[in-house]
């Protein structure tokens, strides 16, 4: 394609503008990273700045000293994310499979049952009362995993659409003529052929679990069940919280002042790191999911 001068100029203009927009998307992250390594006195006197006068690793040293609280929250977050995503992905795809089978008598009925949950919700109060009064879910790992996040209609329909349009029905039929059970067909044929959509939905679920703090807001009052997000909430409410952790005293008498602002920012940085690690390899699944999700909600 031959380019005119006007087109080249436009392409250059787009590239520069996009550069600025991307920079704007990144700058806040850079600011908190810099703030996390700024000396506390510098933060207090001059405020947050991209070019601080004095650097210091105090915040990270402080976190290292209170590693117990921090690592426990990290552990809770990882555990909840892994269990929730694994179980959620399994029950989501197990439900999507019968829905995708046009020869299954109840496939439309199932689709309606799932779909209706996207249209109407009973609201917060009935489910809060149900989980707390009847399932007694307060202060448990289940409280972080089960309410609202385990499966949702959108993901089920996404997987069903993929099963329907990407796995040929002939393949299923011939497997069953060869004597494969439904269970076997599902695990040996459907799942291996559907890795892309499972990756997409798994990524959606993993992000939802990693970033969730609302379940704990409603159902958790004991700090030992706080994941990283709720530790951050706590930290925003009260910097002294870290001191109540077992390792709090390990900071020692040498620390004249608690690097509270820098510690907050250091914690935020550590909360983002796992996302930065998984984003590059998994981005294509995310992009694909957004597109198919929007077109075929």
């Amino acid at each position: 394609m031959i380019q005119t001068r006007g087109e080249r100029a436009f392409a250059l203009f787009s590239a520069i503008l996009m550069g600025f927009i991307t920079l704007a998307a990144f700058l806040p992250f850079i600011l908190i990273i810099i703030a996390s390594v700024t000396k506390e006195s510098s933060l207090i006197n001059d405020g947050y700045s991209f070019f601080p006068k004095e650097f210091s690793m105090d915040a990270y040293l402080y976190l290292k000293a209170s590693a117990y609280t921090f690592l426990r929250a990290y552990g809770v977050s990882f555990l909840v994310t892994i269990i929730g995503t694994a179980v959620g992905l399994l029950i989501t795809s197990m439900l999507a499979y019968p829905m995708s089978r046009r020869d299954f008598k109840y496939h439309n009925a199932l689709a309606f049952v799932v779909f209706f949950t996207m249209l109407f919700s009973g609201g917060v109060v009935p489910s809060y009362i149900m989980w707390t009064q009847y399932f007694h879910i307060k202060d448990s790992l289940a409280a972080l995993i089960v309410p609202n996040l385990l499966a949702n209609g959108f993901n089920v329909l996404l997987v069903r659409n993929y099963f329907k349009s990407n796995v040929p029905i002939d393949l299923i039929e011939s497997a069953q003529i060869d004597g494969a059970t439904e269970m076997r067909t599902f695990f040996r044929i459907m799942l291996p052929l559907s890795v892309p959509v499972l990756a997409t939905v798994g990524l959606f679920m993993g992000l939802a679990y990693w970033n969730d703090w609302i379940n704990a807001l409603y159902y958790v009052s004991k700090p030992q069940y706080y994941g990283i997000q709720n530790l951050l909430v706590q930290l925003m409410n009260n910097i002294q919280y870290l001191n109540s952790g077992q390792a709090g005293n390990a900071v020692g008498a040498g620390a004249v002042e608690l690097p509270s602002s820098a510690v907050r920012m250091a914690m935020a940085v550590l909360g983002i790191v796992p996302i930065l690690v998984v984003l590059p390899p998994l981005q294509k699944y995310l992009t694909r999911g957004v597109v198919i999700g929007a077109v075929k909600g």
Partner: protein
Amino acid sequence: MRNARGTTSALRKTAPLLMLAAPGLLYFLINSYIPMFGVFIAFKDINYAKGIFGSDWIGFDNFQFLFKTTDAWIMTRNTLLYNLTFIVIGTICSIFIAILMAELLTKLYSKLYLSGLVLPSLISMVVLSMLVFAFLNADSGFVNKSILRPLGLPEINWYSEAKYWPYLLVIIQMWKTAGYGSIVYFASIAGIDKSIYEAAKIDGAGKLRQIRTITLPLLKPTVIVLGLMSIGRIFNSDFGLFYQVPLNAGALYSTTQTIDTYVYRALMQLNDIGMSAAAGLYQSIVGFVLVLVVNSIVKRVNSENALF
């Protein structure tokens, strides 16, 4: 005999599939359907001593009470206005970014930009609240100390001045979601037949004219459908954005209270189950009606994109 065998073979065919569906179905039954039947709570004066079912029926008292307060008006207004603003400005920003991205010369660049632009949408509302805090806190925030002070302008106590938050929340929401939102439009633009642009070029149309006469009209169906879908959800707000990002500051309620934050505060902070349940049901019912209305409109505009 024949009939009986027919039934057993049908059962043999459906039973394993039902078994596979069972765990997921059970989850939806518990997580979604039981609470749907629990909406009757809004019509009761809940007293835990008497139990949910034993508490007295009070008809529409909770609703009457709720709509007499100014809270009802404030939260409805805020929820609607914020969502409308997000839909309009968000669509414009996302399309703008998508067009720029599509103009980039190589695929590699657009991928790089894309990963930068989706990053804000992947962080939690808690981390977002901390980023915002780094910019806005009164004592050492970036805006006060590194922008307003050097310019000689008076510093602002952001977390106690409600009037700034409508602008702040729109900027914050755009920062978080515009890049992610542009993915769909970027994909639509990538799907446009290149020969249309070639033809326009031969006719002497410049880039801007091509965008105005080809790209934007071809994006119109996507814009309409996505816009209508968002309108269907206009009664729902992102709890974290309105609760955690303003750090739950009481002074800001007049511009940050939405239906979702009210439901939370009434239930968990005021222990007013009745008001919370009434507000929640109000949201569910209006939201449900809106989705139905919007879907029938989408059906008329472009039946392929209708939800049902």
